């Protein structure tokens, strides 16, 4: 399972790449593996305001419909529209082509509530052994 070291992670298995006031987000390799084949990603409303750890959109897979939570508070400025025709990008490339949304951040200090690579790795290992 891939966990890039330049990203931050949530307990609900979202990743975020922060670049100043802007951030790109998606779901992790662990999450896509557990969801199975993704069949639909709901485009969030334009300029939707989101709070950290609150729902930003929903992903449907052959197994379930799951909420996706915002890793940081702010405003959704863009949805990855290639997911509309090709939701499988989330399975094939969760960290790159399968990104979900761009967020304009309102409070960068919320970063402190997220995990780095090694923390997330430890968290996922713990979950896997519990299973």
């Amino acid at each position, binding site marked *: 399972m891939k966990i890039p070291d330049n990203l931050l992670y949530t307990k609900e298995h979202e990743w975020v790449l922060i670049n100043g006031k802007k951030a790109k987000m998606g779901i992790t390799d662990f999450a896509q593996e557990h969801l199975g084949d993704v*069949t639909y990603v709901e485009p969030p409303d334009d300029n939707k305001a989101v709070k950290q750890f609150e729902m930003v959109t929903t992903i449907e897979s052959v197994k379930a419909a799951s909420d996706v939570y915002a890793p940081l508070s702010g405003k959704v400025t863009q949805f990855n529209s290639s997911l509309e025709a090709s939701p499988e990008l989330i399975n094939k490339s969760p960290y790159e082509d399968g990104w979900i949304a761009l967020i304009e951040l309102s409070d960068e200090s919320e970063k402190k509530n997220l995990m780095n690579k090694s923390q997330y790795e430890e968290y996922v290992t713990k979950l896997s052994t519990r299973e």
Partner: protein
Amino acid sequence: MKLIFEKSVAGRRGVTLPRPDVPKRAIIDGKYTRKDAAPLPEVSELDVVRHFTNLSRRNFSVDTNFYPLGSCTMKYNPKFTEAIAGFPGFTELHPLTSHLGQAAMLVQGALEVLYYIEQLLAEITGMKEMTTEPLAGAHGELTGIMLIAAYHRDKGNKKRFVIVPDSSHGTNPATAAIAGYEIISVPTGKNGCMDMESYKAKLGKEVAAVMLTCPNTLGIFNTDIKEVAELAHRYDALMYYDGANLNAMLGKCRPGDVGFDVVHLNLHKTFSTPHGGGGPGAGPVGVSGKLVDYLPVPKVVRNDNGTYALSEKKPKSIGRIAPFYGNFAVLLKAYAYIMLLGREGLITASERAVLNANYCLAKLKDVYELPFERTCMHEFVISASRQLKHGIRAIDIAKFLIDRDIHPPTVYFPLIVKEALMVEPTETETKETLDRFVEVMREAAKLAEDDPEILKNAPTNMPVSRLDEARAARELNCSHI
């Protein structure tokens, strides 16, 4: 097998209609009428008979095979209830007759059935009053949450949230959200029930209701249930009982006695109506004394002279939630079923449902992972996580069962168990059927180690092989033309 459209031959007819012997008259304005003939299949009567007979033989149902679909209670429904629901005295009634004042005297039998099924269901669930109007489980849920909302509005309570455990049926949070509440999800603790510490932390004065399925979707009875209810009531949050799993509890525990304020029942699960074919269900809702005033109208009432009538007198009612008075035939079947089984019979039904589930569980838990090691109720959840080490997932085991003429258990639900297989055998199956199921499940576990390809390629002896579920969901195309 060809589609009926593909069997069409231009000019072929099933019947020859006589020439019309009345003058043609345009009743519908020409701008609304069809210019070209409808593209219907042109086939003979025998083509039609064979087509649909052969299709029906490919159908899978409780009447043909074992159907342990967890959380759905696919039990056998005795045919005598169908016979009663087919009595012309019931089927030939016009549903509006009961609304026409004196004409209600012509439908006293039907009104009496509605009156008594309410009484019986209220007694079984320990609730004060019922409505039998809701047409299905999810409709009952929405009715229940609307009753709770009406109660809070009436009392001037400011409420925003509904608490739902993470093992719940998806309809619970969906219902609460449709009714305008925000959802608070509570994780499952080590004992397979809602984690009490987390529940206490999330409870507060803005919580409108706590929605629980009991026993829950892991097939576990929540032994903290009284405390859960007491804590909720401290904040005037009402307790909602999802009756999907009532089949485990008949005559053993009444939701009303442990503190629930609203109950919805799925008559098409517990009380003898076939289910799962998209046919009509019924989702009656029972309430505690707090909510009686808000129940939907009309209500069946018994007059002092012993006659029955529909009453609209309920000023605080949430109003009408369905046309007429619910799915009458389904209510009638439930009435017949309860009257035939009686108190002892219903208790025995639940006991056998629980016994059958525990029997299967005991025979499978050495080969499948059991996420919560507890005595189960009427269903249990195992995980294919051990088989996953050989590349075999729950879906592969499910498809293999189809090859062995067994309907797969529910898979990938509840969401909190990885590679979940949720098995509900029901009380209507014999030991021989259960033994065969166990044998096939053990065969699948062995094949996962010895010859996983067989599982991955299943099913092989069905009309179609493994369907591409992802593609079917991504490229929706439901139309023939």
